[in-house]
């Protein structure tokens, strides 16, 4: 009898080992499915876009449709680049960050300091809802507030406002989460030295959580970097390099949309997308690096 029992146990073990193997393979397969889109995207962008990438592509503005057509007819690369888009994206990002970071960080500190309070919960929930507002709606709002209300016309400022509103909830959340990760004992240590509350926040909590804050901000920026819809209603676009925030301004995603709509320029969409993707990816990698280094 005893012998038989052992036999059964052995066969069971075998089937278990088999199941174990099957599930392992499945897990690996599904992981491959998860990472394959990004690999395929990058592969496609490089394949179709690398020919157009050159120094000119970064330093020059786009050709007009006729120039592009002539180049195509002669079998040449489309001349010019997307300098107006790159500078516009940078300009709007900087202005949006300048608006969103102070407000977001201060709100995050407020939420961290007042857990469970009614106003804090309300703020947190509203901030979460804001994160779900469609970007085109934020574009419309910025259109009414800024394009109609302040700059009297399409402007980089209006674009920045819509992007800043998009960034805000991400910065709020990441600030709160970062501060929550700091042990209370660090705060107590500072308070036990008689340090006033505002200095504890400014000189202890923020420096301690600095890398976390930076990571959140960089992720927030990279998230809105490729936004197109709100910019159509606010920044509009421009064929020249513009650094005046009250004037219409181009942006890389806007240019991609414009190129797509012009049969002569459509050859530029891949290289522009490749550049945009490279910026977003490097921002992501940088923030991952910062986060990893401080753990």
């Amino acid at each position, binding site marked *: 009898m005893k012998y038989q029992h052992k036999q059964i146990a052995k066969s069971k073990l075998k089937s278990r080992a088999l199941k174990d193997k099957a599930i392992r393979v499945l897990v690996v397969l599904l992981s491959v499915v998860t990472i394959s889109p990004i690999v395929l995207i990058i592969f496609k962008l490089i394949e179709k876009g690398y020919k157009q990438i050159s120094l000119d592509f970064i330093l020059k503005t786009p050709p007009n449709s006729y120039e592009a057509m002539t180049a195509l007819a002669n079998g040449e690369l489309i001349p010019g680049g997307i300098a107006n888009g790159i500078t516009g994206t940078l300009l709007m990002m900087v202005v949006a960050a300048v608006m969103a970071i102070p407000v977001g960080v201060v709100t995050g500190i407020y939420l961290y300091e007042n857990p469970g309070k009614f106003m804090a919960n309300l703020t947190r929930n509203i901030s979460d809802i804001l994160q779900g507002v469609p970007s085109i709606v934020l574009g419309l709002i910025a259109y009414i507030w800024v394009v109609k209300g302040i700059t009297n016309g399409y402007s980089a400022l209006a674009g920045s406002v819509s992007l800043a509103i998009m960034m805000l909830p991400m910065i709020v959340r990441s600030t709160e989460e970062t501060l929550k990760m700091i*042990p209370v*004992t*660090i705060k*107590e*240590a*500072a*308070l*036990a*030295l*008689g*340090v*006033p509350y505002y*200095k*504890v926040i400014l*000189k*202890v909590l923020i*420096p*301690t959580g*600095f890398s976390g804050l930076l990571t959140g901000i960089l992720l927030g920026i990279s998230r809105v970097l490729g936004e197109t819809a709100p910019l159509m209603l606010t920044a509009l676009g421009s064929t020249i390099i513009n650094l005046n925030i009250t004037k219409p301004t181009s942006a890389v995603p806007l240019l991609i949309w414009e190129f797509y709509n012009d049969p002569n320029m459509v050859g530029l969409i891949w290289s522009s997308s490749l550049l945009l993707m490279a910026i977003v990816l490097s921002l992501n990698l940088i923030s991952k690096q910062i986060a990893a280094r401080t753990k």
Partner: protein
Amino acid sequence: MNDNIKQIKDPVLSIRNLSVSYDKGKYAVKDVSVDIKRNSVTAIMGPSGCGKSTLLRAINRMHELYENIETTGTLILNGKDIKNMPTIQLRRMAGMVFQRPNPFPTMSIYDNVIAGYKLNGISLKRSEKDEIVERSLRDVTLWDEVKDTLYKKGTFLSGGQQQRLCIARALAFDPEVILLDEPTSALDPIATAKIEDLLVTLKENYTIILVTHNMSQAARISDYSLFMYLGELVEYGKTNDMFTKPRDRRTEEYLTGKFG
């Protein structure tokens, strides 16, 4: 409770009828009166939730961080009522060390020691800083171990070294009393022994008040002991007396391990 007041000549700290309640009517500390002797080690003992940490934190008013706290009674530290003292002044006089070592992770060892000056915006000359850092680190017997790595982050030290660094940070202000809230409960036995030796030597220049869960620790290093139960001060006296012939039945039961 009045029979528990031991009148001591020139006490460094004199607590009278101290009560701390929270959420309206729940007492963490109930009518405690006690004098703390200068240059001694006083241990506060008692089971979890007996109010010993709250009592300790009431001394430098750190308990005010909790919400809905109400405090009555007086605490006289070095002849001055602490109630209206600016917190910076009070906490310079009553330095605190916590359960878990908590050096500031962004600061070097050097900056950690003078963190109290730095964070409060008190400017010192370079030579004064150097002097304070060296004196404080020597006091906690850490100087020889870290003098070559003063500008490295304090968090690279071992747990016991970190805790001594935190004591040095409190000593940098040259306080009257040092309040320690179970300072060795997160440390290994060797590090614990070092801290205990240190506390015994430090009492030459400072007064030490120590909350401890560990009765043998209290027996080893304290001169006086307070036994608290349910927020009340049950017994106060020389540690030797309390451990050999406790006057209160509850003290005896706690010390013999019947509860705790």
